[in-house]
C-alpha cells in the first residue's frame, strides 16, 4: 500500500538513520542539562539557597517566569549576579533588596506587605471571615424565624403516623428511586 513506509521498515538504511538519531539524542541531552549544571560554588551549602532565590525571583523581561525557568539573556545576567552576591556572602534578604532597588517590586514573586499590597495579602482571610459572617447571619435568621413562627412546629404523633403511612405507601411503588434501583439489582445477585 505505502511503498515509502515499506522502505523504512527494511534494509540497513533506516537502521543507520535510527542510530544517527539515537546518537543525536544522546549528544543533545547533556547540552540541555548544562543550563542547570554549569554553576559551581565554593561552598555547596550555597546551592540550595541559589535555587530557592531563582524560584522566588521573577525574570523582569518575561511576564510570568521565574529566573530558574527563563532563558532570556537578562535572566542569565541576573543568575550570574545572584551567584556572585552569594559567593560574596550576601544574605537572601540583601540579594532581594539589591534586585528590588533596581528592578522594583515586580521582581519579587512573593510581594512584601506594604500600602499597595496589604489588600492582596489580607484578601484570603478577609473573604473567609466575610463568608463565615454571611453563613452565621443566615443560619441565625433561619433559627429566629423558626422560633418566631408558632405555626411551624414538630409533627405530632398523629401527623407522624400519616407521614410514615405516606412514605410507606410510596416505597411500594416504582416511583421511589432508591427502591427502584434496588429492585433491579437484587434479582441479579
Amino acid at each position: 500500500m505505502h511503498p515509502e513506509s515499506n522502505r523504512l521498515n527494511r534494509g540497513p538504511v533506516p537502521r543507520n538513520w535510527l542510530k544517527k538519531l539515537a546518537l543525536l539524542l544522546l549528544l543533545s541531552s547533556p547540552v540541555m542539562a548544562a543550563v542547570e549544571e554549569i554553576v559551581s560554588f565554593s561552598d555547596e551549602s550555597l546551592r540550595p539557597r541559589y535555587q530557592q532565590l531563582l524560584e522566588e525571583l521573577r525574570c523582569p523581561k518575561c511576564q510570568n517566569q521565574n529566573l530558574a525557568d527563563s532563558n532570556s539573556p537578562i535572566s542569565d545576567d541576573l543568575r550570574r549576579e545572584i551567584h556572585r552576591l552569594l559567593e560574596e556572602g550576601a544574605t537572601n534578604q540583601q540579594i532581594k533588596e539589591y534586585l528590588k532597588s533596581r528592578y522594583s517590586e515586580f521582581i519579587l514573586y512573593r510581594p512584601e506587605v506594604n500600602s499597595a499590597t496589604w489588600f492582596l495579602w489580607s484578601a484570603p482571610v478577609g473573604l473567609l471571615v466575610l463568608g463565615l459572617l454571611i453563613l452565621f447571619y443566615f443560619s441565625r435568621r433561619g433559627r429566629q424565624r423558626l422560633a418566631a413562627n408558632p405555626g411551624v412546629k414538630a409533627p405530632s404523633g398523629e401527623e407522624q403516623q400519616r407521614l410514615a403511612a405516606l412514605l410507606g405507601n410510596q416505597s411500594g411503588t416504582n416511583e421511589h428511586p432508591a427502591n427502584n434501583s434496588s429492585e433491579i439489582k437484587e434479582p441479579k445477585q
Partner: protein
Amino acid sequence: MNRLTLFIPLILCVALGAFLYSSLGKDPQELPSALIGEPFPAFSLPELSDPQRQVGTADFEGQVVLVNVWATWCFACRIEHVWLNDLAAKGVKIIGLNYKDDRDMALEWLKTRGNPYQFSIFDSRGTLGIDLGVYGAPETYLVDANGIIRHRRVGVVDDRVWDNEFRDLYQQLVAPDAP
C-alpha cells in the same frame, strides 16, 4: 432598605467592570521604575570608540542629558535612531549606553546611521544595565544636572512620547527660569 440590598451584586459587577476596563490600556510589559528620583548609578566603563578611555558619571556631571540604551541587535533601536539624530541636531545632549553588544558592529552602526551621542558607554556585560534595572533595549533616561534620574522610558521614544513625557520636564530642567 431591603430592596436596595438587591442592587449590591449589580454595583459590585459595575465596579469590577470599571476597574478592569481602566486597566485595559496599560502595558503589562512596563515595570514600575525603582530609580526615579535616585542618583544615576556610579560606573566606570570603557568608551565605545576609544577602549582606552574610561567613562563615568563625571563625564556628564552638571548637564541635563538623555541616556539612551541601544544595541545593534535591537530592532526597535533602528527606528529610534533616526529620531535621535534629529533630537541631537536640536541640541539635546544624548549619552549612548551600548548594551551587551559587539564593539565592531556598534561602531559600524554609528558610521552608517549617524552618531547622535556625545559618547557611548560600552557595557558589553550589561553590568551598568543591571544597576539601572535595564531589561531590554531601547530605554531612555532623563538625568538632571545633579545626576538624578528624573524620567525613564522603556521602549522607543518618538515625537509623541517626547511631547507627552519628556519635553516639559526637559525644558524645565534646562532653563528653570524660563516662562
